[in-house]
């Protein structure tokens, strides 16, 4: 079964670029322009990984991550895409699995997605057993 990824980014150009960059991986790519759209998308189709921008209108990355953990018993891993001074801190704040500092290379993005995409036969994670904020830098 094709693995899926949800790209949550308010900047339409960057969203399109990320989709284009990810195309060689053959993933099922869905997009959302903010946290609220992302939550709706996840309810319809559960992705294997979420690439998440933090500063977005309507619902930002922090509120999205919080809402996701409240409503989803087995939420997908999250990789933060951020232009913040300290991307690691951002990842820690929301308990993300990884982070990608803007601006990033194509290779950075692909390595990061490969690293955090769960293996195809893996069972959904029990997040309660995971340490919060264990995010690691990509690549």
């Amino acid at each position, binding site marked *: 079964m094709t693995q899926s990824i949800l790209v949550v980014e308010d900047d339409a*150009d960057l969203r399109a*670029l990320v989709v*284009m960059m990810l195309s060689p991986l053959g993933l099922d790519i869905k997009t959302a322009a903010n946290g609220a759209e992302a939550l709706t998308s996840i309810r319809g189709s559960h992705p294997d990984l979420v690439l998440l921008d933090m*500063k977005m209108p309507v619902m930002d990355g922090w509120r999205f991550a919080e809402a996701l953990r409240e409503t989803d018993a087995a939420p997908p891993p999250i990789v933060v895409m951020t*232009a*913040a*001074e300290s991307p690691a801190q951002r990842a820690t704040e929301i308990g993300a699995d990884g982070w990608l500092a803007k*601006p990033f*290379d194509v290779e950075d993005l692909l390595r990061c997605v490969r690293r955090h995409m769960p293996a195809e036969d893996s069972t959904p994670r029990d997040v309660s057993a995971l340490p919060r904020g264990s995010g690691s*830098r990509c690549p």
Partner: protein
Amino acid sequence: MQPQGHPRRRRRSNLGSFEANSALDAPLQRAEERERALLALLQADPSDRRAAIESVTEALAVLVRAERTSVWRFTPERDAIVCENTFLLEELRHLSGQTIRAADCPRYLAALERTLVLRVDDALNHSDTEELHAEYLVPLGIGAMMDVPIWNSGRLWGVLCCEHVGGPRTWTRHDEETACKLASHIALSLQASERAAAEARWQVVIDAIPELVAEIDADGRWIKANAAAKRALAEETDMVVGGRFTGLELKDLAGRVLDASEWPGERARHGASVRSELIEMRSLRTERRRWFRVSAAPVIVGGAIASAVVTCADVTDEVHLEHLKRDLLAALAHELRTPTTIVKGHAQHLLRGEGLAADVASAVSTVERAADRLARLTGDLVDVSAITLGRIILSCELFDLGALLASHLARASESKDGHRFISGVIASAPALVYADRLRTDQVIARLIDNAKRFSPPDSPIEVALAVKPDHVLVSVRDEGIGIPSDKQPHVFEAFFRAHVGTPYDVGGLGIGLFLAREVLARHGGAIWFESVEGRGSTFTLRLPLARAAP
């Protein structure tokens, strides 16, 4: 020389207690009486010079039974003596203002300077006082006089004088001792009043200082403050002089609440010198927050810490401005990073594709490099701002610095700019450091980049690594233009560019070495350089070796 004094209202007198005992004549009783009088004098504030002198002349008149007692001081030119106070026992009143000039009475004034105690039993027939006959002794009916010296700071300041109205009088040893003791009391008072005057002058000076200045005693109590400090503390706290510092919360630049033992005054009280630390103070009463640049130093007296002085300059406005600048930079960098990602990403995507014409590929490569430069620039600006406000966050991990250096060397050797890279990496074991890998990488990249930018294309650049018992050294040596000696002290300052306006001006913001120094300092490391203009530079950085995996 007739006294031109004016009667003054008596402010206070010790006479009551003495007069009750005036019938006492036995030497022992008279000595007791004198001691009591001295004790009474000692209880008064010695810094009130006028009051002390009046008390002395009154006490002396009673104790030696002299009708007139007075205090005279030498003018600064020592060409006259001026009466500070004369007490008339019969009239119970004080006079002042008379002057005896050396020009009129040279022998008398010379005798005062020369003689320890001028004891004249028969003033009308004594060579030292005969100049005073017509103008002073006869009109006032003085038959005997005695002058004892008043010393101040090792110098004869003036005399304490007893004058007997009537015929000659034999001054006794008791009279002389009494006068001398009382003269010593005046000397004490002079010193105290001069000290008080000096302190008052100094208080005026420190009150004029807009910064807050306070002194804390060895027990941590606030004992002195200038006007600005008193005003601020009164407005913001319930503290009183003599009390401990309370009602304030102090935070450092990182927003951490300081424990009371970390307050600058406390640290200075234990011997530390605090220089220009930025501290935020919050009043628990008014909830007002202000930023201060605080310095503190111990006050050492006799080899021991007696107190601590703290100065606080209010820099709230400057810090707010700095915050604004940082926020602006952060917002700017944030906003620039997304379009930079887009430009760079598309350039990379295009370059990965096939069939791109050579000139288009070259143009797209240029776009990608420009995007990289833009990315570095925005990152640097954010770092400068974060460092200035002490808010840089390190993400430390354990890694091999040797391997990092090797990857730099490999990349540098691949570049086609003509430099010959020489590896001096000598490491028998991994150079493991616990550091922010990304920032360490940036520091090394900057040093190599500087070496390339400021040396001829065909010259060698040596990158060396040396592992020491507890630290590792990385050096980058070039044979380039070097740094002029007058510019060298400023090399690590933010926004300083050594070659600005010269043919070697290669642009840039002048923040690379500033960032390098700050980043290394936050790792417990350091950076330094040696440079000779026209011959090249060697920059060396030191990082502590990781002792064990954290």
